[in-house]
């Protein structure tokens, strides 16, 4: 019996320490896996970066809308666009793929807590969100004359982490409801209109009134406004780049209710699968 190889350290024995160790291991491997899957990692990071470079830096350089710098508006909007994409494609399509392959069944038969897998995928989406926000911020500062303080950047990161959760739940619902073959298509059909109608591609103030009216129904609108509200806050203008007609609380409530709806759908779909299993 060969024991020449170094044995990996045994997992800690206590309950909480072991659970944390499992979560950490799971998250590490989910992230490595996502990073190595070039079709995912390059497009999830590439599209927001590409759109920002095109629409925010090359086309509308130095333009303003209502006194707000377009390059900065788009920095916030495309950051949200990127985070939502990372969550929907990483979790939605990811869960659908793992489910259809029977891989999740093998993991369920193991002692792994099911939450470990979900949290690992969520943390991976957050990590990609942080990467996207950082690249966009760098591009905006260097190429778009955007002034961004460190405090604002950290607030953007914090919002990325919190804002990933509603869309992670949406991804989970999609993964449980939509069959694997149609998952990428359905995800795109929801992701792109939702982003546009939430004002993530073109600032809402220059879109038709009809679209502006339905925007509050979009979770992307709420997260986008929260992100814009970080920029250029002054005593006279505490809402920054966001529309002062809506309060910060209303946006958080919008995201919270969206999260609950998505979790409800996910729970129903999960129970239906269980009963048929």
């Amino acid at each position, binding site marked *: 019996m060969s024991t020449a190889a170094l*044995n990996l350290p045994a*997992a800690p024995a206590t309950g909480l320490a*072991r659970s944390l160790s499992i979560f950490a291991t799971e998250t590490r*491997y989910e992230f490595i896996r996502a990073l190595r899957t070039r079709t995912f990692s390059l497009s999830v990071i590439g599209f927001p970066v590409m759109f920002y470079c095109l629409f925010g830096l090359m086309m509308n350089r130095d333009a303003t809308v209502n006194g707000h710098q377009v390059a900065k508006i788009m920095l916030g909007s495309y950051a949200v666009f990127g985070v939502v994409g990372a969550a929907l494609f990483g979790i939605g399509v990811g869960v659908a793929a793992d489910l259809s392959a029977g891989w999740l069944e093998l993991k369920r*038969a193991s002692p792994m807590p099911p939450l470990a897998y979900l949290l690992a995928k969520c943390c991976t989406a957050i990590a990609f969100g942080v990467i996207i926000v950082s690249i966009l911020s760098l591009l905006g500062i260097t190429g778009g004359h955007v002034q961004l303080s460190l405090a604002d950047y950290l607030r953007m990161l914090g919002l990325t982490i919190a804002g990933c959760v509603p869309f992670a739940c949406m991804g989970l619902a999609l993964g449980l409801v939509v069959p694997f073959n149609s998952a990428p298509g359905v995800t795109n059909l929801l992701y792109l209109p939702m982003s546009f109608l939430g004002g993530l591609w073109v600032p809402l103030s220059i879109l038709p009134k009809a679209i502006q009216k339905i925007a509050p129904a979009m979770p992307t609108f709420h997260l986008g406004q929260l992100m814009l509200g970080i920029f250029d806050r002054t005593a006279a203008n505490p809402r920054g780049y966001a529309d002062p007609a809506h309060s910060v609380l209303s946006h958080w409530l919008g995201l919270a209710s969206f999260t609950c709806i998505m979790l409800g759908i996910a729970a129903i779909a999960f129970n239906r699968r269980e009963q048929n299993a």
Partner: protein
Amino acid sequence: MTAVMEPTAGRTEPRTAAATEAREVIASLTNITKRYSNGVVALDNLSLDLRRGEIVAVLGPNGAGKSTAVKLLLGLSSPTAGTVRIFGADPRDPAARARTGAMLQVGRAPEMLRVREHIAMFRSYYPNPMPYADIVQAAGLEGIETRMFGQLSGGQKQRTFFALALAGNPDIIFLDEPTVGLDIEARRGLWAQIRGLAASGKTVLLTTHYLEEADALAHRIIVINGGRVVCQGTPAEVKSMGATSHNSTTTASTATVRTIRCQTSIAVETLRGLPGVIEANLVAGHATVVSDRPEAALREMLALDTTLTSLEVAAPALEDAFLALTANHS
């Protein structure tokens, strides 16, 4: 290549029912009925026990309920009626799962993780995992540990799944069609590993379509059809039951049924009167005699006809027994 040539080499335990019945029951399905929402009844009042240190092969035609039984034992599905117990607990209990390993028919595992990363991930789930080097050696993965799962051949992927089943050093292992896609050397290697597991006190439940595999490995075979246990016993017993099941006038159920074939001039009526004969046929001098006391029958035949040639004494084939058992009850 002796390991390849002798399928039964290395099997040291006598595979009799008495040897295994004395051991404790560590997993059981008791009066299980499983009805799906579309009305299909997958298991119908089925009961089966698994004992420590035994290899049990579950055989049955497609749709018989083998995979459903395995899913119930793994806690991936819950029964409509009846109870499932592993180590005295519900199979969904993490403490029970910590002592269970499974190799299921998985279509695709994450392709952008290396073999050693897959093993490390599964090892992290268990409180007392098997040492990494032992897993790699047992699954025959030396040399391909750093390869991405997506780059592996079909046989290498199967061996990786076997490594994941072993990762937690489990006390009970479920193998669902484990040797599909393996070449003969890899298949015999896996058989040797399975025997080693049972020898060290672990229990293995194996479903397979390769009857030769069940014959070579199992201490006990359970034949399932239509959601019910059709018969169970050692491979020899099942073969005998299959050979005699189509003949309802006999009550023979011993493990000694043999088919004797030869060229002989003995008349067919005499053949039918030989000791223990269940069936006898004579076609153009070529006799086929099925008897449950083959030595006595053979002694008489050799005494009666000194010109007897082309003698062949064969144990009933598991294929024939299996077909007979599942045909009668479908």
